[in-house]
């Protein structure tokens, strides 16, 4: 653990990513305390006010207001809840089904493995956003369905990572040893092998987070994700698209938020991968 932290700290990008992720998490958790207004409160008298550095800004709406007169800063802050929430639940969804499918495929092998992995190949063969749209079209647009759609689309990555590390681990001597001591399938794979596969999974979870947020924003932008008035960043982008010339901050700022959070998770994932890679660690 000490080793890990030492190696992780060497990577400045990763530390920055971690800080940004923590910051975003804090903002999301404390949204009601930080945000100056409710995200859905409409101020009729102040439509499309610019942010504070522009002329004609109103100091009480720091980042301006949108076309319906809602405070943009508050919406962005509440939006972090939605986006991080989606990311989190996508990862939970992925890990849950990814572990079940990956473990089954990796440990049993044979036709079970073939069936599961070909299914995953089919999912991978379709353009991910298209598949997500199909899923949402079937289930109907809502936040929960967004999570399910994005979860299904990104599931193959996790299943592959789990299966690959199970395949590596199951050839190791300690597995043969625990078999010879009479350990059951459950004991061998769930209790003994799985903890050895956690490192790549952690990395995958971090990337899964950013993937989830990005895909959910894309669905939101297409109007298939979170439904108004939920302050989801992708949905906000799409609503503000019409005003890209008259009120460019309405498009820029949510876009920037998505960018920062996604980059933060990617940096974190990279750092985790470098620090947890056994080849680097043992060297």
């Amino acid at each position, binding site marked *: 653990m000490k080793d890990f932290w030492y190696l992780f700290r060497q990577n400045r990008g990763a530390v920055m990513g971690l800080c940004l992720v923590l910051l975003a998490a804090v903002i999301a958790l404390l949204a009601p305390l930080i945000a100056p207004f409710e995200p859905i409160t409409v101020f009729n008298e102040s439509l499309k006010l610019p942010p504070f550095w522009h002329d004609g800004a109103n100091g009480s709406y720091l980042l301006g207001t949108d076309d319906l007169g809602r405070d943009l800063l508050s919406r962005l802050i509440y939006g972090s809840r939605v986006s991080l929430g989606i990311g989190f639940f996508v990862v939970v969804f992925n890990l849950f089904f990814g572990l079940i499918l990956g473990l089954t495929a990796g440990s049993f092998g044979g036709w079970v493995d073939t069936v599961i992995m070909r299914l995953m190949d089919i999912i991978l063969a379709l353009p991910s956003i298209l598949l997500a749209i199909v899923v949402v079209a079937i289930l109907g647009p809502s936040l929960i369905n967004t999570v399910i759609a994005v979860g299904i689309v990104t599931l193959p990555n996790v299943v592959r990572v789990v299966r690959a590390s199970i395949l590596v681990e199951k050839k190791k001597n300690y597995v043969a*040893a625990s078999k*010879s*001591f009479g350990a059951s399938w459950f004991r061998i794979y769930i209790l003994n092998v799985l*903890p050895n596969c956690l490192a790549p999974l952690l990395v995958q979870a971090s990337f899964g987070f950013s993937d989830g947020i990005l895909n959910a924003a894309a669905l939101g932008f297409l109007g298939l994700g979170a439904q108004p008035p939920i302050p989801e960043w992708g949905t906000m982008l799409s609503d503000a698209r019409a005003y890209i010339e008259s009120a460019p901050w309405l498009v820029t700022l949510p876009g920037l938020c998505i960018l920062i959070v996604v980059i933060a998770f990617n940096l974190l994932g990279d750092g985790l991968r470098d620090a947890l890679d056994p080849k680097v660690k043992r060297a």
Partner: protein
Amino acid sequence: MSLLQVKNLNIDFSTSTGVIQALRDVNFRLEEGEALGIVGESGSGKSVTSLALFDLLASNSIVRSGEIFFKGRDIRKMSEAEKLKLRGADISMIFQDPMSSLNPCFTVEYQISEVLKVHQGLTGASARDKILELLRQVGIPDPQSRLHVYPHELSGGMSQRVMIAIAIACSPKILIADEPTTALDVTIQKQILSLLQKLRKEKKMSLVLVSHDLGVIAQNTDRLLVMYAGEIVEEGDSMAVIQKPTHPYTEGLLQCLPGLHSHESRDFRLPTIPGIVPNLGQRPSGCQLNPRCPYKKKNCEEKPVPLFQVQANREARCLYPLNVERSL
């Protein structure tokens, strides 16, 4: 009735280059409290034999025929649950490379406690006491301080001691040691082997010692099987086999051992057995050793050679055994 009896075991492996016969016609028995040695070169079938006793062979293996009786019951006909109960409790095994045979994620205490929990349902304080006692039995100094140590913090010898502790935790009737000292240096090797002997006597276990080192086998076993190309080529009392080998292969193996003074002459070359182990996919006809045998006669290639009784308690798979008067 013997504690363990292996009858007519034939095992094939299907590989990308075709089916190979890994074990041919293996028969042996193991008595209670006995130490049996199995020697042979790499690929001679030693490890396959020991894994077969657990019914834990790789998935590409095909057991053509054979029965393995433990206390009179055929292990291969037991249900999966019975096999799980057998492994680790009645028969257990220690492996060649102790460092990689322990799970890197868990502490010593956890790994020993797993076997106790699975087979005896011991948990908590009673398990803790038992673990400390086991660690003491396998000669780990200051066991209390080793409980929470991870495998990477242990030396090779210590890891092997922990493996032995796991293996003997449920007082098995048979302990199989598959090259237990190959990965360790010579001084540790000696310690581990005498530990195994001590435990065998204390716990009245039978020991199967698999090795390619005849010296190790000679000192630590009562009876010896010499394997070549998946067949048992010689069987007998360890000392007798080593002093007077009857199969040319055993003799060849013994000549390959460096002696204490053999290096003193400058142009001394360690003898080797000419040729290589046959490709198990394309076996020679007749006696498996015939392409390499210095005593080869014409009819050695004709047909497979069965095991002959050459003396009392002594069998060899050779038409012209050495060191015996042909009175039989």
